[in-house]
């Protein structure tokens, strides 16, 4: 019997793609030096980094589900998954036309084409084309006023992926590159106990999310135009995740 190839599937947004480590929005070196890439190296697994620049949490959930649907072969692959959740207020809205977000994620190891059926709404961007310009002001208002709804939705996505991976008997680890904030809401308090905290690094701890933690610690990447972290925070965060993994054995060598 042939040995199965050991793979680490890495899903997330620009932070887990290693955006701007070398100053470029996306590059092979960025993905190699991202915290996920470093973890894959430590575990001696081939990284398949499917993180999209600008990804939303619903997009991240689809990256995982669609990769398994289209690429996974349990007969030849031994897959572990690292899922890094992003800012909960980011939205993806079904679009009237076909889009192409591949241009922003030029070095992804696999491209989830389902992203092209949506347009993204990020709080710092007022939109470019007619459809975005028409819809974004109203959606920004929704994002500002309905944060509880959006965070609850993200927790439901976490459960979706948790149960999806459990159903496939695939080992995984989750973490936050961007924090969630509303853990005092009863709706969220009811969901959190359902999340497996032994497979979720710093569940419910907003001070420990990758981007904000290292920004607060004073790390600045002089090569970055859009504030993404450099090599050192990625290495330090990979070390944190590997220490968590040592205790909880989420991902396997």
């Amino acid at each position, binding site marked *: 019997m042939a040995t199965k190839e050991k793979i680490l599937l890495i899903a997330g947004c*620009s932070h887990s793609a290693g955006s701007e480590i070398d100053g470029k929005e996306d590059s092979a070196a960025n993905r190699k030096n991202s915290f996920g890439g470093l973890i894959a190296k430590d575990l001696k697994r081939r990284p398949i980094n499917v993180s999209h*620049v*600008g990804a939303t949490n619903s997009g991240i959930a689809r990256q995982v589900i669609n990769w398994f649907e289209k690429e996974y072969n349990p007969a030849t692959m031994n897959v572990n998954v690292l899922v890094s959740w992003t*800012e909960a*207020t*980011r939205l993806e809205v079904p679009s009237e036309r076909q889009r192409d977000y591949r241009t*922003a994620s030029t070095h992804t190891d696999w491209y989830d084409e389902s992203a092209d059926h949506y347009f*993204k709404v*990020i*709080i*710092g*961007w007022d939109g*470019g084309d007619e459809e975005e310009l028409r819809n974004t002001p109203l959606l*920004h*208002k929704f*994002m*500002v*006023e309905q944060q509880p709804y959006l965070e609850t939705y993200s927790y439901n996505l976490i459960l979706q992926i948790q149960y999806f991976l459990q159903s496939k008997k695939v080992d995984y680890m989750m973490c936050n590159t*961007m924090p969630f904030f509303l853990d005092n809401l009863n709706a969220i308090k009811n969901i959190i106990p359902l999340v497996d905290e032994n497979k979720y690094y710093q569940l419910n701890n907003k001070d420990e999310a990758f981007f904000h933690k290292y920004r607060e610690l004073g790390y600045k990447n002089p090569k970055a135009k*859009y*504030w*993404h972290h450099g090599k050192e925070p990625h290495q330090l965060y990979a070390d944190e995740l590997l220490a968590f993994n040592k205790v909880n054995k989420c991902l396997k060598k």
Partner: protein
Amino acid sequence: MFKKIVKKIKAFFRKLNEFLKTPYIKYKRDKEYKKRLAELKKRDPFIYK
């Protein structure tokens, strides 16, 4: 009859009061929205075109 007139006058002044306050309430809501929007932009500063 007298009670009815007083009731109507009170209702009129209540509506007038609400009407006069509308711009202020709108201004307050708008200010709060802009403050919150700025907070979120600071929290998620990334721009993807």
